[in-house]
């Protein structure tokens, strides 16, 4: 050991500064740890972060107009879409030139569907025009203005050109505006016509129903978790199997079972009619509405509430309740003042779990939700698989993600996320 004076760097045995030597040895350990988790890291990157990132990117990405109609976009820049007049011949010429190439590359249908998201009819306009325009020669057949209007009178409508210009930017906020029932127009962001405003309503309904479902799960799950945590091990295991049983059944089967239970001619209605509580011609409407969704989803998500509650309650020693009683508290006071506050972390964990699962739920609302029991995710699924408006689907998804994050943040502020315990 060498004698060190204060302020001087400590030297390791091999003469290197101690700090450097320590960092080096720690780095080796860190690298080794990193190597161990590398497969998982790569897996998560490839299957989770990258797809989500690319999906979120789609909500603003809009290069298709620029890429397919490059000359038209440039030519349209000089045109004032608010003048109410048609663009000049240069724009028409540029458009025909672009369009011929697009038709050759079979890209005209794609841009047609893209613009069709904004105004219906654009897709058929592009398709119809393509059949004529592909026979034209960009030099000999000019001018095109009247010819194009002859093909379809919509080309003589300044609104058509306005749409192309408005949506020609490379990154657009159009999808997000659509997602909150607004639209991108020449005059800036405007509200959608009232008959098309459904998404905000769906968002509010999704959050509201998720909150109701979370609340129902707390009410139903708390006593079950309490019993589980206080039974002797053997009986607790039996009950635990009952709690977990739904996990081992397909989600689709469970939801379909609810359909059998709840429908008009279903088990519950039949029983009520048989008991005479409900007359045969006034059977209860308990499916294909919000009631159906809330009932089925509460049942399906209940284990996610019970399990964290149970694991937190298990860690609360029974001596606390005994102590409270020995100090003079009635059963209720002992529970409310001593047991309940300590079980809050479990309620918090279960609520976050259930709420986040509920807000993005898809299958159950789809099957038992009818029209007024569906969630925003059903709309997202519709845009992904039916309307193929992935940009809007991505924007809706991004908003959903933001809502969850905001609620998570709010929870952290109010309750504190370190209060959440899963065991």
């Amino acid at each position: 050991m060498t004698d060190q004076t204060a302020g001087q760097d400590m030297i390791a045995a091999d003469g290197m500064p101690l700090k450097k030597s320590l960092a080096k040895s720690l780095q080796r350990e860190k690298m080794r740890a990193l190597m161990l988790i590398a497969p998982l890291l790569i897996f998560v990157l490839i299957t989770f972060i990258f797809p989500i990132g690319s999906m979120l990117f789609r909500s603003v990405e809009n290069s298709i107009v620029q890429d397919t109609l490059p000359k038209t976009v440039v030519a349209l820049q000089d045109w004032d879409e608010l003048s109410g007049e048609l663009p000049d011949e240069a724009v028409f010429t540029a458009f025909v030139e672009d369009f011929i190439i697009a038709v050759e590359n079979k890209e005209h249908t794609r841009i047609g569907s893209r613009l069709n998201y904004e105004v219906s009819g654009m897709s058929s306009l592009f398709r119809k025009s393509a059949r004529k325009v592909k026979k034209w020669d960009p030099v000999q057949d000019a001018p095109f203005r009247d010819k194009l209007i002859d093909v379809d009178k919509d080309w003589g409508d300044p609104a058509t050109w306005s749409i192309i210009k408005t949506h020609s930017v490379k990154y657009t906020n159009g999808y997000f505006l659509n997602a909150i029932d607004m639209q991108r127009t020449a005059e800036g962001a405007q509200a959608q016509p009232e008959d098309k405003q459904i998404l905000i309503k769906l968002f509010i309904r999704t959050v509201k129903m998720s909150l109701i479902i979370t609340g129902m799960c707390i009410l139903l799950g708390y006593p079950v978790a309490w019993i589980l945590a206080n039974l002797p091990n053997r009986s607790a295991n039996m009950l635990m199997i009952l709690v977990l049983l739904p996990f081992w059944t397909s989600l689709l089967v469970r939801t379909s079972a609810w359909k059998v239970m709840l429908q008009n001619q279903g088990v519950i209605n039949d029983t009520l009619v048989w008991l005479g509580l409900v007359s045969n011609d006034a059977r209860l409407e308990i499916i294909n509405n919000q009631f159906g969704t809330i009932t089925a989803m509460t049942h399906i998500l209940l284990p996610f509430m019970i399990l964290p509650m149970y694991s937190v309650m298990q860690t609360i020693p029974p001596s606390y309740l005994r102590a409270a009683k020995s100090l003079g508290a009635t059963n209720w006071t002992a529970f409310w003042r001593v047991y309940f506050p300590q079980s809050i972390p479990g309620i918090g964990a279960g609520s976050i779990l259930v709420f986040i699962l509920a807000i993005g739920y898809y299958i159950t609302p789809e099957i038992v939700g009818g029209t007024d029991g569906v969630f925003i995710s059903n709309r997202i699924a519709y845009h992904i698989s039916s309307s193929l408006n992935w940009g809007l689907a991505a924007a809706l998804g991004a908003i959903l993600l933001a809502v969850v994050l905001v609620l998570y943040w709010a929870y952290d502020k109010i309750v504190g996320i370190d209060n959440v315990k899963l065991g």
Partner: protein
Amino acid sequence: MALDNSRDAFVQFNRVQKSYDGETLVVKDLNLDIPKGEFLTMLGPSGSGKTTCLMMLAGFETATHGDIMLDGVSINNIPPHKRGIGMVFQNYALFPHMTIAENLSFPLEVRKMGKSEREEKVKRALDMVEMGAFGGRRPAQLSGGQQQRVALARALVFEPELVLMDEPLGALDKQLREKMQFEITDLAHRLGITVVYVTHDQTEALTMSDRVAVFNDGRIQQIAPPDALYEEPENSFVAQFIGENNTLEGVVKEISNGRALVQLDSGDLIDCKPINVSEPGQRTRVSIRPERVEFHKDRLSPDAHLLKATVKEFIYMGDIFRTRLSVAGNDDFIIKSRNAPDQVRLQPGQEIEIGWLADDCRALDA
């Protein structure tokens, strides 16, 4: 040893039985009277029923049969929160989500006491255990010993006349435990409260209690003040359980004038005090404390029966010497001698003769 006059008993167990499964009795026919102001310890190995008795007294378990009386009133059907009994738990059971002051205030709040009165009592109770400066802290911020004091203060703050303690010092280290033993007894006597204390630590039981009830197999084996318990065990379980003890087995040859002549299994004869043997021919287990065994030739009485012994091991323990001997077929016969200037240090292999006063050698049940 139970008090004859049951009117003097503050706490009374009257033929109490307890069974959890309906097949075996955990507590068998328990009779116990505790006068006001007594510090009574229930001592016994785990599973002996002592904690069950405490829980029945606190009201967390119901007696299967028999009456438990508190101040002359049967409390069998009174729920725990109406019994007004203070209790200190093994793990302290301080409420983790409340501060120390809130913990102490809790029993006063549920008694609907006014705020100023509450604050005053909490302060007084905390000062009593020298924890006055810690009212604003959470239990997790305190050391084990501090939590112990707070638990004690909480059990006393609503001024109960009876306080139960369930192995309250089990989690503390040795030094702290000894300090707390003294503080608890001091506090109990100062306040004049009745304490029922459960432990499996015999040193704790002996140093703290007015009387100790030794439990085994669901019964009280002996209930007596500490000195009587140690020096005059009434059966071989108590003799074995309390303190260190040497046993030799044999058969009673004759009993006369308060003396029993016992022939050990090795053939040797010794004089004993008959405790629970009554006639010749009975098998007996003879009990003798290690510090009552004499091996100095000049101090041995010449007419007493002596036994030959071989020194097996000599252990230096500082204040005492602990020597292991082989006596009459027993290889674990221990003797203890004080570390004094004239004390003899026995060498392994040495052959000696040992003896004792007949009164110190108790012939118990086999």
